[in-house]
Every structure is written in C-alpha cells, then in structure tokens.
C-alpha cells in the first residue's frame, strides 16, 4: 500500500510518454530498445550504460551466450554451470569446478538485480558488468578459453553471426559485443517477487517471526537505549539487500579470519592495506537457495552464518567497525566481539531471510536455458 501512489504515478507517466513516442517517431531500423521490468521501490537513478542500451535482440543473444558451452575450452561448461537458475544462479558448491576438473578458489556468486551493483567479483576487480562477463571465459580455473578462440568459434557458427547482427548491427563478433550481450541478459535477471517484495507492496503480511527478523535485520543494536539488532542491514542495504554501490563502500571485512590468515580481498584492487580481508557484500535475494555462504563457501547453512556473526567474529586490523562495535549487551573495550542475539532472534532473522526467496525468478522461462 505504502508504495501504491508513487507506483501509479510512475505508470501513468510511462503511458503518456509511450503514447507520444509511438505517434511521433518514425519506425526505426535495428534492435528494439526495451527497459528493465523493475519495481518502483528499486533505486530509480541508475541509468543504463550509454554504450550498451538494453535491447530485445541483445538480451536474446546474451541469454544464448550465458548458456553456451562453446565458450569453455573443452565445451563442457557455460556461465550457467556455476550460475544455475534453480539455485538463484549459484551452484551449491563451496568453490566451483572449471574445465578439466580444476578447482576455483571462490564461491560462485548468486546473480540477481545486478543493474544496481557497481563492482563485480568478491574482490571488486571488475568495474562494469560488461567487463566482468568476459573474465570467467578466459580464467584458467574457470572456462579457460582465450577470448580470440571464443570469438572465432562464434564467428564460424551457423547461427551466431546473424544474432550478433540483429543485436549490434553487423555480423562481426567481438569481445566487446560478447561482454555487452552477456551484461544485457544479466541485467534482466531481476528478482522482485519474493514474499518480502509482496510485503513491500502491501499484498501480504509477514508472520510475527518474519516481522521480528526484518526489524532485527535492518537494525544496528544499541544496548544503552534497549535497541536490539542483528546488524545485517549495515552492509546489506535497502530493498535490494545488497552492498553500498558508492566507491568501495560495499566491501567489508566481516570477521571470518584473524590478521594472520586474512586474504588480500579488496586490497588486490586498491593496494590499500586498510582494505585487506574485505570482500563484496552480496545481495541477499534468494539467499536460502544459494548455500554455501561467504567468498570461500565455508558455511553450509544460514544457521552457521548467524552463529558466525553472533559468536565467532575474528578480530583483526580491518574488521568492519560496524561489526566491531555491534553488540546487544553493554561491552567493555577488551571484550571479544559478540552480537549477543538470542536463539529466538537468530531464528527470526533466518525466517526473514527465507522471505527473500523468489520462486517466480528461479522458474521464469525467460531466464532458462534456450537450448532446451
């Protein structure tokens, strides 16, 4: 209910503009521009990259490339091997196998609502989705295919040149176009019909337990004013439950390891020692489907994740201050970092996390394998 007025306003504008456009503009050649089907409570000010407008033909090509096993060296895996729709576009494994059984070192990130994210990979090494999409193709522990080889395989295919022509105006296959098409398809992966979404739209009520979980999720605790919180929303922001898109603000050290075992993380990208051990705060849409958790997949269940944040935070030089400072009970400076949630509160947060599951998203035929 809360967002209804705003929503209908936007819809009305859309209709008005649309009708002007169809009456006055001549029929255009080339790919058909489309816009993302997103709810009005997602951030509005997130333009499409000017160099890669979203088109029907681009998305169609991107979807095929996403499921295309020719983009791996031995033709055994595609993007979708590690990003499986039914698992919220993750793979259920601690770390993902590449071609020839090589093991990666990182947990495959779940994909959803990527248009509102600004840095990609756990350490943030890709700035755009277009750039990100090409890297796993060449990565020796992933698809391990030199991009020139990928280009020539697609160029010599009987279908792809036509699809590239429809999407980009000529049959030429380039790395840039592969990245653009994949990015376009990935932008359409919008998850916005979970119970949480329906609650935002005023269509359903949460159970008392889910409601408590939601409030805890979005609250930083302050014991001196009896404010209890789970401290999750400090990093998993807003309706998207994803990281801060500004600069490197969406990267955090969440207390997985002590100083001596901290991996470089964001420091690999920035060179700043203060960024050691920081990883991207992922969006939590469909989180109940995307186990195991953390950049290295070390936790197999949400219960383990909650136990980590509640009881097992490892202090280090770069531990996020919002974790360092968060406790539901008064602390002395030398106390170990503990959140002091009750068992009931941890269960409530997990109940809320389960409301982020979007069955429509994980079964939407638009996102499924086009070769089946």
């Amino acid at each position, binding site marked *: 209910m*809360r*967002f209804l*007025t*705003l929503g209908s306003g936007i819809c009305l504008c859309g209709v008005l503009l649309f009708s*002007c456009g169809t009456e006055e503009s001549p029929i255009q050649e080339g790919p058909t521009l489309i816009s993302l089907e997103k709810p009005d*409570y*997602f*951030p*509005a*000010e997130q333009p499409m990259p000017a160099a890669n407008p979203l088109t029907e033909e681009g998305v169609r090509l991107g979807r095929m490339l996403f499921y295309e096993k020719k983009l791996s060296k031995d033709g055994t895996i595609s993007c979708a091997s590690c990003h499986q729709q039914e698992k919220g576009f993750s793979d259920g494994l601690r770390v993902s196998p590449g071609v020839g059984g090589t093991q990666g070192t990182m947990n495959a990130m779940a994909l959803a609502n990527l248009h*509102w994210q600004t840095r990609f990979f756990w350490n943030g090494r890709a700035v755009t989705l277009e750039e990100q999409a090409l890297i796993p193709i060449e990565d020796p522990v992933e698809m391990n295919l030199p991009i020139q080889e990928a280009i020539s395989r697609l160029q010599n295919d009987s279908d792809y040149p036509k699809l590239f022509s429809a999407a980009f105006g000529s049959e030429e296959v380039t790395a840039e176009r592969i990245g653009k098409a994949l990015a376009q398809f990935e932008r359409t992966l919008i998850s916005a019909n979970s119970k949480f979404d329906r609650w*935002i739209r005023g269509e359903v009520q949460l159970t008392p337990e889910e409601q408590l979980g*939601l*409030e805890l999720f*979005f*609250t*930083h*605790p*302050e*014991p*001196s*004013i009896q*404010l209890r919180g789970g401290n999750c*929303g*400090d990093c998993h*922001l*807003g*309706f*998207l439950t994803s990281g*801060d898109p*500004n*600069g*490197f*603000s969406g990267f955090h050290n969440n207390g997985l390891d002590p100083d001596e075992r901290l991996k470089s993380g964001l420091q690999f990208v920035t060179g*700043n020692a*203060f*960024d050691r051990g920081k990883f991207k705060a992922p969006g939590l849409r469909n989180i109940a489907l995307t186990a195991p958790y953390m950049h290295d997949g070390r936790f197999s269940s949400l219960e383990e994740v909650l136990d980590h944040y509640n009881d097992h935070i490892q202090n280090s*030089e770069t531990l996020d*201050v*919002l974790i*360092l*400072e*968060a406790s539901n009970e*008064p*602390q002395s*400076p*030398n106390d170990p970092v503990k959140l002091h949630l009750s068992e009931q509160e941890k269960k409530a947060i997990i109940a809320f996390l389960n409301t982020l599951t979007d069955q429509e998203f994980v079964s939407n035929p638009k996102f499924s394998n086009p070769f089946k």
Partner: protein
Amino acid sequence: MKNITYLFLAFVLIFSSCSDEEIPAQMTVDLNFENTLNGKPLQLNSETFTLPSGEPFIAKKLKYYISNVVLTDTKSGAVYTVPNSYHLLGEDFKSTVELGMIPSANYDQITFSIGVDQVANAKTDQTGDLDPNNEMAWNWNSGYKFVVLEGEFTHKTTGVRTGLVLHIGRNQNYKTVTQSLTGIRSGRAAQIQLKTVIDQLFLSPNALKVSELPSTTIMGGELADKIGENYASGFITIE
C-alpha cells in the same frame, strides 16, 4: 504536448530578451561542501586524524542531510525557497548541491537545516536523496539518520582499536542554521563554499571524550541529542 513546448519556448525567449543589458532575471547557485577534520580535508580509510579528545582516528564514512535551503536578500526582502530541498552529502559521495536557475537577487543570507524535517522524516516511500535504498533510512518505518560518522580510534586507556559509530537522527535533532553570505551579485552565477567541521560534533556545547564513553555506538538517547546540540552551530559554516 506541443503547446506546452511552445509555451516554454516563449518563456525562454521572454526571459532571454530582457537579459541583454540588464541583470538577468535568473542566476545559478551551487553549494559546495568541504568536509574537514583537524582543519584538513577529510580522507576516508587512509589518513590518521585526531579526535578533539586526543585519540588517533581513521574515518570510514561521513554522510549527512541538508534540507530546506532558503536564500534571502535582506535588503530587498527577496526570498527564494528551494523546492523539495533534501540533499544527501558526504565524503566520497556528493559534495555539491546545484540549485539550478533561481530568481536573481543579491542574496546575503542562507538558511538550511541539518537533517530532514518532521514531514519527510515520517515516511520512507520517497525518491531522490530520500530514497530508502541508500543507507540513511533507519528501516522502513522510522525515518532517517541525519548525520552519520563512522570510524575507528585507539582507546586511550586500553590502547585497543575501537569503533566509533555515530548515527544521529530523530526530529529533536533537526537543526536549522542561518548564516550570512558575502559576494553574491544578482544575476551572476554563484558558488557558495561551505565547510563541514567534523571536530564540532565532539566539541561544544557538549565536549565528548570518546574513551570515557560507556558506548561508542551512539544512535539515540541522551548522547545522540548532545551531538545534535553540537552540530546545531559551527558544524557547517560559510567559508
């Protein structure tokens, strides 16, 4: 649609035609904010600063709302009230508010508030800088944080790396500031330089010694209101 366009063009022509020799009817005004600590530009996540109570401090985040900006020409009595005026500013974030084309006047006074007013603070279904998807909404129900400062300091007695988390909001901490302006000439593009003095959050009238605080997470209650009193004056000033 076309009629509206013509009407708009007519207005533009009218305005531009009378601006040939005379003072233009409109002028642009930008507000530029510089965030400082210890008299130096703030740097996040790198440089070590010193808190007014003496502790070494590394800032991690600074964000704050400015709202309801009003410019006044006290001599002519001209007043320009910026419509829908809610501006989220911060370090490594926005530092300029462009007011766009506004009626020309020799503005010599600016009034603005730190935080968002009671009306805007009572709902979160808003867009632009009040979009609850940015991290300034407390949650869906209870409005906005007005001033956020996060960082780490070395505790004076224990020597331990300690977090400092100031999330100040609530209607009682909505503070209105009026300052004099100089050098603004009617019809000329104006840049108003403002300085945000982070030290002032800890200074006066309520001196805060962070190593002596029972909790260095301050998100409400008496301590938050004391910080609100501190930012009511001297926190954001005209340079």
